[in-house]
Every structure is written in C-alpha cells, then in structure tokens.
C-alpha cells in the first residue's frame, strides 16, 4: 500500500500549480484559480496556489485576487527556470507535507512534463488535459444532461460521492470520459488552457492573501538536467486563446494564399480579433505554428469563430467547437464544418469574405452614427 492510499481522509484543500515563466504568471493560472475556487467551495475547503520560482512573492497578491485563499511559496535560485528535476522534487515535498486532496496543473508544455513525473513519484492518478471538472454529483448530472446522450434520469449514483470527476475529450472530442481517482490522493489533473473561464479580479481578496513560505531543499545532485538557454520566438506571439474573435483559414486559401490571408486579416481587424489556421495551413508554411487551432494546436472559445475554407476535420473541430458562434464559409456543401456551424455560407471565400467584411463595416458605421445621434 502506498503512503497516500492509507488514509485519504487526511488529504484536504484544493491546490493549483501556478506556473510562472521569467517572473510572469501564465494566463492559465487565473483560469485554474477561478475553477479551483468553485471546487474548493463545493468541498468546503481552502484553495491554495503553489508557486515556485525565485523572487516571485510579488505575484501572490495577483493570484489571490482571482480566488486563492493561500499561496504556498517555494523560492530558491534553482527554481528560477523550470527543470523537471527541481520542480518535481519541490512539488512532491510540498504535497507530502501539506497533503492536498486535489491538485490542478495547466496542461502547458511544462505542466504536461511536470504532472506525470509527480504523479508517478507520489503513486497517484493523473487525468490529462481535462476540459470539465466537478465534485458534487448533482452538478455533474446537470453537466451530463446538457452535454451527453446518456439517460441521466435512469442513472444510479451515489449522492455522497466527493470524488473529483475529471472529464476530458478523447479521439478529438468524439468520445468523452469522466475519470475518477478514488483510492489515491491527491487526485491530479492537468487542465487544457483556454477552457476554464477566468473570474473577475477582487481587490479585497487580493489584500487578504495568506503567504506560507515552504521549506525548499535542493542540492546540485537533485538536478540532472541543465538548461543552457531559453529562447523566445522572435515573431509576435498571437493571443489566440484570449481572443474574442478568431478568423481562421484552411486549405481553401491554397489558390491564392497571399490574398486569402489578407482577406482574413481584414475581417479579423474589422472584428477586433486575430487570425488562426488549420493544421494544413501551418504544415504548408502559410502561417506559423502559433496560429494553429485544433487538437495539436490551441483550443479557443471565442465569441465568434469564422472558418474560411476549413473542411472541419475532427482534429480541427476539437479546438474550436465550444466557440459561442461559428460561421463557416466553404465551397463544398458537404464539408463537415457545416455540421457545427451556426451560420454557413456555401461559396467561394475569396468572394464572400470581402463582402462580409464590408457588410460588418457598414453596419458598425450605422451603429456608431445612431449612438452619436442619440447624444
């Protein structure tokens, strides 16, 4: 029997691993803190952020403003830059000492490196890339009622089940699975960036932050990898995940990629959004990889997602199907993208896009004039 299955009742609180890079918090931290707040309230426990770094105390207040009661702060010069060895040791030491019940990590390239290493060391379960989390059975059933084809009414469930139900898509969203970790603690989950909604910032909550300085023990022998350099991509980073409007292009721009991209950029500029692309576009080198939407790219849930010349393979849909409104323009009336589109236009994107941009511009111009007239 491993140490953490003997008395799972000894494990309390919800923890969020707060990832920082070069002293700056990641957007996922706020999403996870906001989500963690809900889970902690349901369980009636505290929400703690676990922050590792060097000289990062100044970030604690910001984290608390989004809902953390307490920040467990682990500072050490060897934690300034991420290494699996140092981070895994400090995280596991802290978990063994304070015993959290739930531990959430953002599914960034770093979170997905750290999570499994820690879960294997602690002998506990880890669910990857979750898109929905529940504790209460009632709330979970409500979620199933809206998001599944299961017969919820006829389902036998244990009302007192306090296990974290970690729901994640498999096979590009064609199948969903809710995973539990009933016998071991903490129940660990990496959470897909861009899926959980950020709560509003609360000044009072931020001022009330409690900081717990954890003891950090690290020696040279603990670290077997050496980070020689960290290089930021020179190009501008596209904030696809945070954008409210995304105009994406697919293979359909192949006839004239330059014009296709320009038309997409014009529409995005009119809407105040950014340009994304399908994997075909990225693989062809028409757009850089940070523009990619889909299973192996970024997951987005903007207010409006415009798919120009995208067929709608499941791998692409996996990254955008939760958008509030999907508009698809495609020459092929049988393109699968129309199955999930709220509005579909079957036509040539090179003709339709400029007309759509113009129509929106005209309408916005009229709106602006009406407002002025009222003044």
């Amino acid at each position, binding site marked *: 029997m491993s140490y953490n299955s003997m008395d799972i009742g000894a494990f309390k609180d919800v923890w969020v691993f707060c990832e920082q890079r070069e002293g700056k918090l990641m957007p996922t931290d706020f999403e996870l803190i906001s989500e963690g707040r809900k889970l902690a309230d349901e369980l009636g426990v505290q929400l703690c952020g676990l922050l590792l770094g060097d000289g990062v105390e100044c970030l604690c207040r910001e984290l608390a403003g989004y809902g953390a009661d307490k920040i467990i702060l682990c500072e050490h010069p060897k934690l300034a830059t991420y290494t699996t060895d140092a981070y895994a040791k400090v995280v596991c030491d802290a978990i063994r000492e304070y015993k959290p019940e739930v531990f959430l990590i953002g599914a960034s390239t770093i979170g997905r490196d750290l999570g499994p*290493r820690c879960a294997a060391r602690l*002998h506990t379960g880890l669910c990857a890339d979750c898109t929905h989390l529940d504790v209460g059975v009632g709330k979970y059933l409500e979620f199933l009622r809206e998001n599944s084809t299961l017969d919820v009414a006829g389902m036998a469930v244990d009302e007192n089940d306090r296990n974290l139900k970690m729901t994640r898509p498999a096979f590009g969203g064609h199948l969903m699975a809710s995973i539990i970790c009933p016998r071991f603690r903490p129940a660990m989950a990496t959470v897909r960036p861009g899926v959980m909604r950020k709560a509003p910032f609360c000044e009072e909550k931020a001022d009330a932050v409690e900081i717990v300085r954890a003891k950090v023990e690290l020696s040279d022998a603990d670290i077997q990898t050496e980070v020689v350099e960290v290089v930021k991509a020179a190009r501008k980073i596209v904030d696809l995940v945070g954008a409210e409007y995304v105009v994406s292009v697919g293979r359909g721009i192949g006839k004239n990629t330059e014009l296709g991209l320009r038309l997409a950029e014009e529409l995005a500029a009119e809407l105040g959004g950014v340009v994304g692309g399908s994997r075909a576009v990225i693989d062809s080198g028409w757009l850089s990889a940070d523009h990619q939407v889909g299973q192996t790219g970024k997951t987005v849930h903007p207010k409006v997602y415009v798919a120009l010349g995208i067929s709608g393979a499941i791998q692409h849909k996996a990254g955008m199907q939760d958008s509030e409104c999907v508009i698809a323009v495609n020459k092929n009336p049988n393109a699968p993208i129309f199955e999930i589109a709220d509005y579909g236009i079957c036509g040539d994107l090179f003709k339709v896009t400029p007309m759509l941009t113009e129509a929106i511009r005209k309408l916005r111009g009229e709106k602006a004039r009406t407002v002025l007239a009222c003044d």
Partner: protein
Amino acid sequence: MKIIVCVKQVPDTSGKVAVNPDGTLNRASMPTITNPDDMNAVEAALKLKDETGCKVIVISMGPAPAAKMLRELIAMGADEGVLVSGREFGGSDTYATSQILAAAIHKIGLDKDDIVLCGRQAIDGDTAQVGPQIAEKLGIPQVTYCAELKKTGGTLTVRRMLEDGYMTVKVKTPCLITCIKELNAPRYMSVAGIFECNQKSVAVFDYEALKDEPLIDATTIGLKGSPTNIFKSFTPPPKGVGMMLEGADKADCEKLAGMLAAKHII
C-alpha cells in the same frame, strides 16, 4: 550503447471515428497505425544508429497483432522487437502502463550510455504521460517535447519546445526523451528490411516473464492497479443544425451581419 524506443499501435483517427451505440469506441472499424510521434522517436533512434552503429530495440505493450507493427519497425532498421503482452496488463491507465514498460526496460537492462525514446503523446489517449512516468519509475532524467537532438559523448543536447519558443537542455545518459514531429521525417521501410524482418526476433514478455521484476506487483498493474478509473464515458449530443445562407452574395452577407448585430454578437 543501445536505444530503446517505446511505440504504440493506435487506431488511425485521421479518418472517420466510429462510436458504438453504447458510447464506446468502435476500434474494429478503424485501421491501426504506429502512433505518429513514436515514428519520429524511431527515426531519431535510427539516425543515431546511422552515426554510431548502436543497437535499436523497439518495445510495445499491446495485444498480439502489435507484433506486426514491430516487424515493420525492424524493416525500417531497428534491430530487435519486444512485445509486452498479457491479460494481466489489460485495462492499465498511464500509471500502470508506465510501470509495466519500465519493468520491461529494466529486464532488457539500461546501461550508462543508453537512451530511451518515446513519442510525446499517443493520438488515441492524448495524455503525454507515459514517457515521463517511465522515466520516473526508472529513476532517470527526462526531456519532453524534443525537436532537435545531438549526442556528444555521454551528453545529449536537446532543443525542448515551449509554447512561445524553446529551451536548450543538456542531459546525461541514461535518460528518456519524448519526441515531436518537428524532430525529423521518418524514413520508409527498405525492401531488404522487409525481407529480413521476418527472420529477426520479436520477443514476447508476458506476465510470467516480468513478474519477478521489482516494479511488477499485482496491485500496481492492469485495471486493478490503475489509480484512475473511468467513471462514465459518453458521446456529446449532436449540435443543432445551423442556418445555411444559400446565395453566397452581398445580400446574404448583409443579412448575416444583421443577424449577428441583432444577437449582439458583433
């Protein structure tokens, strides 16, 4: 020096994914392929073999038909295949899977200058967990998301990708590296390789073969040894049919803009 590459046979999800009425995946309806990221790991191993003449062993946990995949990898240039297969291993989650694979690698033996390569993630589970968990169970360092790999003596220099750039990491062997598609373009099987692959050995490690390994214990493998369990699996409901605008002309675009404005979407 040898390189052990962990590979998985997966359903090809690039075609149509079929789901049974009960909400489980209809695997029979889909062709199987070698997981794409694992192919990059195999290619990385074969490149190092071209340079150094080292031995390459491909290892996979799965049902008996996965042996065919191992033979294909031998036809590409791998030297040996090991199939880890047994009823006792079925239903394993990533923790149990990595436990079993680590035990199999331990049985093969990991020397000071050896390397273990994995793909970043498998396209059926998409967890990206097994690689790091094997590394932890073997007590060796890991570097994930490898897009460039150089070996100088006992040190590997890895370009490790991040969302917004990359880091260069140095790590000593033995170590485990997970590979991504940016690393290389996998080679084809050679004709000679296809002829020879049937003569080469694919060893089968079943429960009997591994049961004395320190990592193998009935409580840490298979369905019973998995910390995570599936609580419910389900298919999402089909989304309601959207509105198609037929003309694809100016009037349509204006109508659409009007509807978006009316719903306060723009």
